[in-house]
């Protein structure tokens, strides 16, 4: 029965293939290396070293010009969209920052300590208390609050984007396949590449910093939202469907609740990545700890730079441990500690 025939059917092809299959990988790689060197030597003696790519095959410059044009066009013609976005982010950020500055520092420290204590245990509570006092001692309190506001806004926007996109990706393999390379690019693209367009779109200052931070930090939240929903056990989903759930009910009552620990892990990663961006964000005009580090570097003050760096580390540790502990608690609640 010829339902499926292998691609190589004739005796000759099969013979060569079997002969190859009989070789161990070591010989194949070793032989390959020798052939490579021989070709390189022959090529180099034919063409000389430093062989250039032919001029008529290169198109990078032309493409770059096109991209420049496109970005300018967007800046000019889509201002009616970009400006309100910029204003909105700025308003949000300023309000939050004002609030953080308005709360007297002892109250903030007590609140943060209490939360760390409740969620992540006694040791983390003590760590939060001591390290936040240290932060004040370094004279970084105001900067830290500014940074916290920036991070909070960037993370909230990231969540706002990540949930719907992650859900879409979880429900459609096509969307998943489309966004996967985009997310990879967002995470690996050097941040400086999108800083300039960010400034051009939103102007120098905090909104551009938030945009750059979101671009860098949002991928894990999207990925893990997608993953969290996809990894809900097929048996559970099937049983839920067997009783006649609509796909909406399935999403809201089964998939999202069960994905929450994974989504929280994604938000944790997103927050950490946002913190890692604060120094770069300060290049486009964000204030806070990142700006402290940046200024110290440009003025050759390694001590001040270190202070600012330690401040960032302190915030990172506290946020990381607390959000991780929260995710774990949620996971355990889901998987069956008795309540």
């Amino acid at each position, binding site marked *: *029965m010829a*339902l*499926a025939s292998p691609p190589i059917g004739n005796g000759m092809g099969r013979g060569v293939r079997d002969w190859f299959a009989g070789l161990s990988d070591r010989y194949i790689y070793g032989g390959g290396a020798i052939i490579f060197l021989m070709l390189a030597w022959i090529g180099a003696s034919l063409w000389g070293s430093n062989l250039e790519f032919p001029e008529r095959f290169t198109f990078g410059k032309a493409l770059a010009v096109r991209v420049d044009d496109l970005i300018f066009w967007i800046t000019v013609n889509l201002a009616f969209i970009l400006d309100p976005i910029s204003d909105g982010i700025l308003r949000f950020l300023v309000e939050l920052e004002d609030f953080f500055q308005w709360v007297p520092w002892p109250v903030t420290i007590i609140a943060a300590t209490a939360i760390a204590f409740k969620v992540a245990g006694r040791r983390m509570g003590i760590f939060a208390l001591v390290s936040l006092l240290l932060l004040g001692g370094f004279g970084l309190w105001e900067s830290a609050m500014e940074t916290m506001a920036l991070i909070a806004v960037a993370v909230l926007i990231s969540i706002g984007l990540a949930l719907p996109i992650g859900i879409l990706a979880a429900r459609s393999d096509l969307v998943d396949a489309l966004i996967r390379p985009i997310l990879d690019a967002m995470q690996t693209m050097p941040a400086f590449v999108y800083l300039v367009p960010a400034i051009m779109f939103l102007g120098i200052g905090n909104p551009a910093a938030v945009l750059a931070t979101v671009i860098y930090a949002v991928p894990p939240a999207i990925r893990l939202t997608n993953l969290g929903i996809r990894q809900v056990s097929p*048996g*559970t989903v*099937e*049983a*839920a*469907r*067997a*009783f*006649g*759930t*609509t796909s909406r*009910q399935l999403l809201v*009552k*089964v998939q999202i*609740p*069960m994905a929450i620990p994974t989504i929280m892990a994604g938000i944790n990663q997103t927050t950490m990545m946002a913190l890692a961006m604060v120094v770069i964000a300060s290049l486009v005009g964000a204030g806070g700890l990142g700006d402290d580090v940046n200024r110290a570097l440009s003025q050759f003050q390694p001590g001040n730079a270190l202070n600012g760096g330690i401040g960032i580390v302190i915030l990172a540790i506290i946020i990381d441990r607390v959000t991780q502990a929260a995710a774990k608690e949620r996971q355990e609640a*889901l*998987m*069956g*500690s*008795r*309540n």
Partner: protein
Amino acid sequence: MAVSNNGTADGTQPKVSVRGLWKIFGSGVPTELTDEVQQSSKAELREDSGWVIGLRDVNFDVQPGETFVVMGLSGSGKSTLVRTLLRLIEPTYGSIEVDGEDILQYSEEELIEYRRTKTAMVFQHFGLLPHRTVEENAAWGLEIRGIDRGERMERAHEVLDLVGLTGWERYRPNTLSGGMQQRVGLARALAADPDVMLMDEPFSGLDPLIRRDMQNELLRLQQQMHKTIIFITHDLSEALKLGDHIVIMRDGAVIQMGTGEEILAHPADDYVSEFVRDVRKSSVVTLRTLLEPVQVKLRMDMSPKEAMEALGEMGEVAGFVANGRETYAGAVSFASLAEANQTGCTDCSGALLDDVAPLSEDMSVSAALPLVRHMSGAQPVIDADGRLAGQVSPRSVIEMMEQESLAEAEEPSTLSVGADAN
């Protein structure tokens, strides 16, 4: 193959009717059934094209109110079959009608409505929602339908009580043992109160005592509710206990279908015989299967002389007497007839032996053993209406019991605890 399928013979519409149902897993399966597929075995098809046969030309009817058992070894397609009945798996070819409606033609909305109101399923691997409590799990079907919380919780507590889980309402399923989780799954299906219950090995995770209790509970519920139940098991004694009809599957195909007794008495092939081997047939098989035609049937109005002649013709020393409407009247022997003849009786009534009691054809073989083991000749068997149905020879009863105890001696069976005849 003798497929006994009572179908629509008595005019009622079957609850579920499955025709030519195929499921082939894999990509690139043709949309029409080809001869090539039809003729290749499961293994061949997997070798040649990577397709896996889940169901192969399955046909059956399930009557309203009956318990229909599907049996087969692991991988024979039982779970695939019940899933297609809910369209959790879309069959590749064939049709499924429930209450005369082709469910494969249902739109998305109709399908949801069908799943909500007409069916409920108990899953082999529970399929509980880990983020919901036991009571919320039990109430799941009702929640999905939009029934308000108070009402659905009340119903959930009722069914949880029924399955013996009172006190566990607020725990999460993962804190319960496997057997308890299975009962939550059962409660969830019962709470939905469907016409058709699909139960995929619902009792397989339970220990033997609870399993027996749950089986009895199901039988009891079934007497009250008369639901249509499609019940999957790989345990023949469970199938025999619960099932009105049983189908046996192998490699996705139905290889035998019938009542438990029919299957025990006439296994269709070696595969079925393997299944049947470990079961104490004698406690399930009735005398009906050992029935022989009555050798000498005498009539009440015969004279003793005529009766003796009839016996003589057949070379028998005893016979059974029926009166006008074929109703069994009693047994006579050559000796009793001769005596009656001498006392001048004109019919057989004077010759009736008073130590021969008729056996009922619904009696199991093991129950009949003590009644016949010391008898020498054939014993009369009557049907439910008291008519003479035939005779059994004590020999055949004893032989059947002996075969069984031989088989058990070879390989001690866990099932030998049941009815003990010795």
